[in-house]
């Protein structure tokens, strides 16, 4: 009985924190941006260079926190980091992109990037969120809600 209870607790823990060791990654925009959420498909298209605008039509300027990039690539884009990198290289090589997403070193760099660019969309560990950026929902779920996919 005790073993079953322990098993059930472990299962609940696994559901609540599906990939222990991987911090949740928030997708953030400028506080003035009216967008509240994106579909995972749209997020993928944006960060793979297949789309360049928010659903409402405004230009999207991409920023990536280097230390969160691997988790984001695997969890949100569904690809290995090297594949994401080679896709961007290929797009620049084809003339379909002129720059790769801005690579930012620290959480403060991400916040500065978002603050300075009203069209920015970037990634940030949930623990680093504050009022200077606005976290948006992905597929209807906000960071820390059950079922949020980027972790």
């Amino acid at each position, binding site marked *: 009985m005790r073993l079953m209870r322990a098993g059930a607790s472990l299962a609940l823990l696994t559901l609540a924190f599906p990939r222990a060791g991987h911090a949740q990654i928030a997708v953030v925009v400028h506080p003035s941006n009216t967008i509240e959420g994106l579909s995972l498909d749209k997020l993928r298209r944006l960060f793979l260079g297949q789309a360049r605008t928010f659903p409402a039509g405004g230009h999207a300027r991409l920023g990536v926190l280097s230390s969160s990039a691997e988790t984001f690539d695997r969890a949100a884009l569904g690809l290995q980091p090297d594949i994401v990198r080679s896709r961007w290289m*290929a797009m620049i090589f084809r003339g379909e992109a002129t720059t790769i997403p801005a690579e930012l070193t620290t959480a403060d760099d991400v916040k500065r990037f978002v603050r300075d660019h009203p069209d920015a969309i970037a990634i940030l560990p949930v623990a680093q969120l504050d009022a200077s950026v606005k976290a948006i929902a992905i597929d209807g779920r906000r960071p820390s809600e059950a079922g949020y996919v980027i972790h």
Partner: protein
Amino acid sequence: MSFIERGSALSRCVLRALSCCAILVSAFATRAGAQEHEMGDADARTVIHGFTDVTYLTGGNNTGRTSAFGLGQFDLYMTSRISDRLSFLGETVFEFDDESGEFVVDVERVIAQYALTDHLRIDAGKVHTPLGYWNNAYHHGLVMQPTIERPQLVQFEDDGGPLPIHTVGVQLSGRDISEAHLGFDVLLGNALGNRPTTDNRNEAASVTLALHSQLTSALRIGVSGYRDAVRTGTPTPRGDSLTAPMTQTIGGGFLAFFANRAEAVVEGHEVSNRSAGVSTDSPNWFAYAGVRVAERVVPYVMHEDVRLADNDPYFTSDRFKREILGIRYEHTARSVLKAELRSLDRRSFDRATELGLQIALAF
């Protein structure tokens, strides 16, 4: 010429080519970085990249050659963002030319690009003709290409490919339009046989239309068409010239799927030539598929079938069937090793088998 003399001539050519590259690079680069060179202020940022490869192909087995290592193209690629909307893209290749016996410089792409909106842009210059998928997804840097060589159908013109791979002209392109994520390309360019200058052999023009959709982030489908009114006297791939005007029409389509585990491309083009009462149709296609079995390892297969019609007014009639079994090791995004076992069945030749190895780099 002895082997040593040939070797020293080759060394001189390589040194000359590398000197040219060094001059080009030093002319454009003011700050050397690990991966890129930048020049100028934020509004005029020039980035230079390069690609190269070394390939080993076995001989014998009806291949008509001996086993040898081969230098691939030494490709310098540069982009410059001139303003928010205007950018430049150039690709120059140094490669060994068998006919002249020397390294030659070939300007493969020179494009002035103006972004009208986030969805529309205009390109002017020498571009890859927007036919199908492979020709626009993969250019001269082989590190990004899944296989050692381009499929024969989309092989470069000077390597015997049947399609007009490059066109000099002006192109309007659209991407990610509507909920269907549609894209299009309309290219108006010089006709077959013309030079990349205004000093042309004829005044005819070619038109290419392409329509595609990025259905999901992994799946893209599309169709394309090309029409060219070719004038009398235009040189043919056979080495002679057209004795009468010819109309060339190319219609094709593709499906390309690239996910984390699986990848596939199926592409076909039919080339129809009409000249002096002779009409021919040449159906051609290829299929590629690969599966990522480990983080960096992708085994793959490819089948190609190129049929150039008998009595064609432009092509040398041919039947080219090739099967490839290969494996790719992606050491990094910038360095890839490939190995292939290939079997080629070509009209009038015995079936040839060969092993190919390649290291391809981006820098």
